[in-house]
């Protein structure tokens, strides 16, 4: 089968729509993850999702149901317990280990085919059905809509919680809103890259964008672009060259961060030389 034949197959096309939706949502939410220094929370929610998916499989439900329930639950728990960013580390850590323990229990109870677990951990983008695409696209669109509507308050509460509270914003409510957005984004991103690689879309593009620009709106747009390009190129390389798509996406996203850091160092040196 030629490359163009491969690209026109239905499973590649499903994958294309799914990665597009996921990359856009993950890029936008990822900016706030980086800004709030809550990468650890993003990491934990992914792993909590693993327990949820394993539990759902054990009960004979679709993994995405378990993912949604567990990720949202953990998000709300972290959002309430760690509303002040100072105290969130311990809350996140405890939530993470408790969920992972549950995940181990669910897997040991489940005697069936372990492939489901494998795809949750590492992503299974080429197995996405048309129904999955619909759900993923709807959730991603919802996330993007909420982020764009609450962009300013989210930014304010993330940058300067004290002043935001003085101006009447509820820090707890903003923290809950953010964690809910993060949970839903994590659920959809897990469909593509899996629990272990969720950072590749959620943190790496946003971290690269934050290095490259100081304007928040530019950074959000740039993070979404980097995530989208990584996801599209990753899918293309996976189909063309072979190897897991999630590997390609992770490698490209991580390279974008590395490239941004190198570019920034070069730029700083250049400015220093100009000033000297």
């Amino acid at each position, binding site marked *: 089968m030629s490359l163009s034949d491969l690209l026109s197959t239905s499973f590649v096309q499903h994958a294309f729509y799914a990665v597009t939706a996921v990359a856009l949502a993950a890029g936008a939410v990822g900016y706030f993850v980086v800004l709030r220094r809550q990468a650890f929370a993003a990491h934990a929610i992914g792993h909590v999702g693993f327990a949820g998916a394993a539990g759902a499989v054990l009960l004979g439900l679709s993994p995405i149901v378990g993912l949604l329930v567990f990720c949202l639950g953990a998000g709300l728990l972290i959002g309430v317990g760690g509303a002040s960013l100072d105290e969130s580390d311990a809350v996140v850590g405890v939530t993470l280990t408790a969920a992972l323990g549950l995940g181990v229990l669910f897997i040991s109870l489940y005697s069936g085919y372990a492939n489901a677990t494998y795809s949750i951990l590492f992503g299974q983008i080429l197995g996405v059905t048309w129904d999955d695409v619909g759900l993923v696209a709807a959730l991603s669109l919802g996330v993007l809509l909420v982020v*764009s*509507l*609450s962009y*300013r*308050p989210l*930014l*304010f509460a993330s*940058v*300067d919680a*004290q*002043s*935001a*509270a*003085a*101006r*009447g*914003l509820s820090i707890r409510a903003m923290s809950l809103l953010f964690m809910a957005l993060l949970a839903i984004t994590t659920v959809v991103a897990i469909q593509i890259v899996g629990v272990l690689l969720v950072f590749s879309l959620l943190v790496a593009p946003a971290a690269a964008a*934050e290095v490259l620009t*100081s*304007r*928040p709106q530019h*950074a959000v747009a740039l993070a979404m672009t980097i995530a989208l390009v990584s996801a599209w190129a990753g899918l293309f390389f996976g189909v063309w060259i072979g190897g897991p798509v999630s590997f390609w996406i992770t490698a490209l996203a991580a390279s974008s961060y590395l490239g941004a850091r190198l570019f920034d160092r070069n730029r700083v040196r250049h400015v220093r030389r100009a000033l000297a």
Partner: protein
Amino acid sequence: MRGGAVVLGGRTIWRDASFVVEPGTITAVLGPNASGKSTLLNLILGLVPLSEGSLRVFGQSPRRGNRRVGYMAQSRAADATSTLTGRDYVGLGFDGPRFGWGRDKTKREVIRRALTLTGTAAFCDQPLHSLSGGQRQRIALAHATVFSPELLLLDEPLAALDLAAQAEIVDLVNLVRDSTGAAIIVVAHDLNPLSSIVNQVLWIARRQVRSGSVDEVVNESVLSELYGHPIEIIVTPRGRRVIVGLEEEFAHPHPHPHPHGFEHNEEAHQHLSELYEEETS
């Protein structure tokens, strides 16, 4: 505020606070660490309830998000690593709390005015982490004064600044008062750099609040009573007042000061170990 008291988690922070802040005046809030200075600001912002007495802000009970009240939070370590530009941070003072897609056409002009007033226009497009501490405080002041507030609350604006930057910020605070006619309340741990512009002092110590002019509050009998420990004020040849706590032996002359005397009074000593200087007018 009349007869105000704050109780948080069953602990009385302070009580019997009565004072009035007039427009166009600067009030300094002083006292040891953790004496409830920032709590006073949170009270005015409507973030903390008053347990006793009454507090009126422009004739009304304090409420959250009042645009007539500007607030500058204590500078945090996060500023030093923030990649946000000064202009974006000031912009959050304008429409940061607002949800939705709408853009306010007056935003650009309002922000330009705040940047001009605080002298920050030249460096407002640089990321906050690349600015000096004094520059960051100027940006924070622009953020707090975006709506030309009639009451401006500043929490430790001079903390972690060198002497030159402190003087710069004090001048700026004075300028803001003169050009906007706002009433300004400044929380500080040291009266000295502020003394030239302060009209009123609120001194919080040992759960009490004393208010009055600098002369009324910064004298030996009032401070001794506040701290529950004898205080001596030394006037330097240039007319500055240095506030010191007296050692146990001076306070209660005793031929053999017992060995536990110091430990016993450790808390009072801690309060008094800071020196407060004050210029006489």
